[in-house]
């Protein structure tokens, strides 16, 4: 009898643990990172993440939290904030990243990065999001 009861308790504990893990992974898995913007980056990182997904950036760049795409064409952007240069030629500042997104060929002639006709405010949001990633 007590064996049955222990077996039942173990089953309940295992079930609860599994359910807890599932819930945990759900929240971890959606991976909405801390939306607090990195200082000195004007823009809305939450809107930025959505824009990155909608514009299709994830097809070429690996970006944490952007779910769509393969991300192997261009550099991963998860540590963008730590880079000293962007596009191989400009010092890494939020304004310069915005410039590059708005006019890739103008900033870096010969780059394969296409002009995706992003508008200024959207580009600022995207940069705000990218600067929340990595190396806290």
């Amino acid at each position, binding site marked *: 009898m007590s064996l049955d009861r222990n077996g039942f308790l173990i089953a309940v504990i295992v079930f609860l643990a599994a359910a807890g893990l599932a819930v945990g992974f759900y929240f971890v898995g959606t991976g909405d990172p801390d939306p607090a913007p990195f200082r000195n980056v004007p823009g809305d990182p939450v809107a930025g993440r959505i824009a990155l997904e909608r514009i*299709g950036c994830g097809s070429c760049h690996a970006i944490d939290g952007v779910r769509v*795409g393969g991300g192997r064409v261009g550099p991963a952007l998860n540590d963008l904030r730590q880079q000293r240069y962007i596009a191989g030629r400009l010092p890494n500042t939020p304004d310069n990243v915005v410039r590059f997104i708005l006019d890739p060929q103008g900033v870096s002639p010969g780059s394969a990065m296409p002009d995706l006709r992003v508008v200024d405010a959207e580009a600022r949001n995207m940069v705000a999001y990218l600067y929340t990633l990595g190396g806290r």
Partner: protein
Amino acid sequence: MPVLSHVPNARRWVPVTVVVAALLAGCEMPLALAPRGPAAAEIASIWWILFWIAVPVSVIVFSLLGIAIVRARAIAREQDEHDEHDVRVAERLRETGADVGLPEASRPARVSWLEGRTTGFVIIGGGVIPTLILIFTTVMTLQGLAVFDTAPEDVAYSVTARGHMFWWQFEYPDHGVVTANEMHVPVGRSVRVELESADVIHSFWVPQLHGKIEMIPGKTNVIHIQADEAGTYFGKCAEFCGQQHANMEFLVIAQEEAEFESWLEAQAADAPEPTDELAQRGRDVFVDSQCALCHTIRGVNQAAPGVAPDLTHLATRRTLAARTLPNVRGNLGGWILDPQGIKPGSRMPAVNLSSDEFLALLEYLDGLR
């Protein structure tokens, strides 16, 4: 809560209702049970009849099981008590030496309503009733499904749907239209769909419009679908067909007939001429690269038929790679450069292009409206 005040003990049910509502809020009705066409409606009604048969059957069977468990435990407990009682009597006999004899029938006779009727119960409950239910459901299902074999009288259009690893080709042979991963139909009209396969067995499934029908190499299956409401309906391959089976989806777009007609007309036209210099260069890149060996752009080239999606009006489609990606410029670029990163196992190889060639090609393809 003026409404609830009419219901006795209403407050007691509030937390229950809240919890149940919260749980149900996470659910969505399966698409197959939200039919938008006659064929799917037939399937849904069969499903609901089976469901309402299954509910009482389950309730009765699980109740009997519960009763059996409870009664078995009660009997076991009583037996234990009586065994203990017998032992006590025997001990007292030994102590006193008195010859009072063993008590007779110390175990209670339990008379059940089933006593002597168990065989009949099993035959009726386990044999007769299930047989009747199965005969009824079989006849009902076959009758319902027979509807699919009779062609409706007013078939408006004919489409050939061909399954490929891992995408769909839709051809409107009477109109000279070939497109991919997106099938358009007029609302309220019956459309004949011929189902074929180019390689392995696929299954054509638009849950809100029709049941799953196999696409079998070397055999043409015919179904008739009709969408009763304008809208975008989700479809997918329902027969495991290989590595990218999960990303083999498509859309059925039901439009008012006039709108559908103008879509057909636009799709039948050759690809638009590129207007600016970059796109013109992109067209040259397309023709000179490997792209043109597998993909046809009507008015530009003729590739081997049926190898890869026709791109004549690529930019009008909502998705890329059989609904793997939304069809936006960024995704189109990524897909051209790294199809194996986005959809590993897809039949599309990466093409080596210089950045100039790539940007021109992207400009051209993105303008194929």
